[in-house]
């Protein structure tokens, strides 16, 4: 894991309620770097997050919303967050329901923007 990617994951993982964060290849849904709590299925998180983002992006394009930057899926038992880091990376985070989404989003968008530079 490169220092820069690792530091970004470290910052995201400090947000309360976070169970793990990772860099994922947008195209094939494979993990590039990860920082996960015990028991979090990294490969599944990466693959499902990438697939969800593809579907959401397709719909956003169809309705004229433009390129998607951030996706959050809230469920009964937690939240999946994804920031797009063009051209080919995703910042993915899995959190429980106590998470401060605003703070998590801030850190993830910051990481995504830094990766895009």
């Amino acid at each position, binding site marked *: 894991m490169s220092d820069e990617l690792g530091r970004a994951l470290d910052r995201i993982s400090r947000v309360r309620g976070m169970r793990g964060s990772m860099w994922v290849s947008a195209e094939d849904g494979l993990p590039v770097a990860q920082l996960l709590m015990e028991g979090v299925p990294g490969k599944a998180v990466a693959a*499902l997050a990438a697939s969800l983002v593809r*579907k*959401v992006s397709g*719909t956003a394009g169809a*309705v*004229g919303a433009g390129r998607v930057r951030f996706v959050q899926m809230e469920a*009964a038992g937690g939240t*999946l967050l994804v920031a797009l880091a063009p051209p080919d990376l995703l910042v993915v985070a899995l959190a429980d329901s106590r998470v401060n989404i605003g703070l998590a989003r801030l850190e993830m968008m910051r990481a995504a923007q830094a990766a895009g530079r």
Partner: protein
Amino acid sequence: MADTIRRLTGALARDPASLAYADLAEALRRKNQREEALRVALQGLSRHPMHADGHDVLARIYADMGDLDRARLAWSKVLEIAPDHGGALKGVAFVRFRQGDADAAAAALEQALAVDPSDEAARRALDTVRRTPWAPPAPPAEPAARVTESVAAPAALRDTASFAAAAAPAPTPPPLPAAPAEAARVRPPVFSGFDRSTADILLLDERGLVLAGGLVSSAGADVAEVAAAGLAGVSGEATRTGEYLGLGVWRTIVAEAESANLVVAPVGEGALILVRRDRSMPVGLALRFAERARGTASTWLAGQGA
């Protein structure tokens, strides 16, 4: 016409996922380039299987080719997706009449008139169907050319003298895509009172069929059907993600995009709502707006016995 085909071909080359394929297929059909039109339509529909207007064009192409069974199937598909699609209702009437079922043709035309009482072509065709003493129509001497003309005209069915009289107006194809005002008119006004109730709020079922509301693109086109088809896939993906990751049932998906924020949420079992809000509205406020619309949709669905 050649310019139109060039322009649409260019648009499709720049964006292969564009819905311009339907206009291109229609333009090719009108130029009697049926094989090419068929190829374009089928290719477009492989990307947009729930695009009603694409199936409508496909039906016209099959009708031009004299393949009435396939034409009827394609128009039936349109009506599955958009039950009030005027072009498809008139297309079904055309096929039924050609197949010797005047009652079914009249029923389809009556339905077209119920959807759009101002459709004069459908009214004249219906009058003619009712007046015509039934006899199975003789096969036209030049089926393809004659059907081309008849299908292009809304008051189709002009391969008998009586229908030719009914179909006097110049051919006017159904709008591609459907005009937003027309689409909104036939959908239940569930969200009246909400800001942009028929342009930014869409209620659909889990199979991707529109139930109420509407969605209009920045260019003014009705994109509700396309959005609904795509959203069914999003919902399935969210359910799978929730199950695999042990997150349980998903409640909302928020997508922040360049020009708008989208909120998707399930409404009871089997229905979804999509709310699109301008980027200038904070995400938290968009979520509250969506929650209010979801409540309204839930109440309406309960009233429908859904």
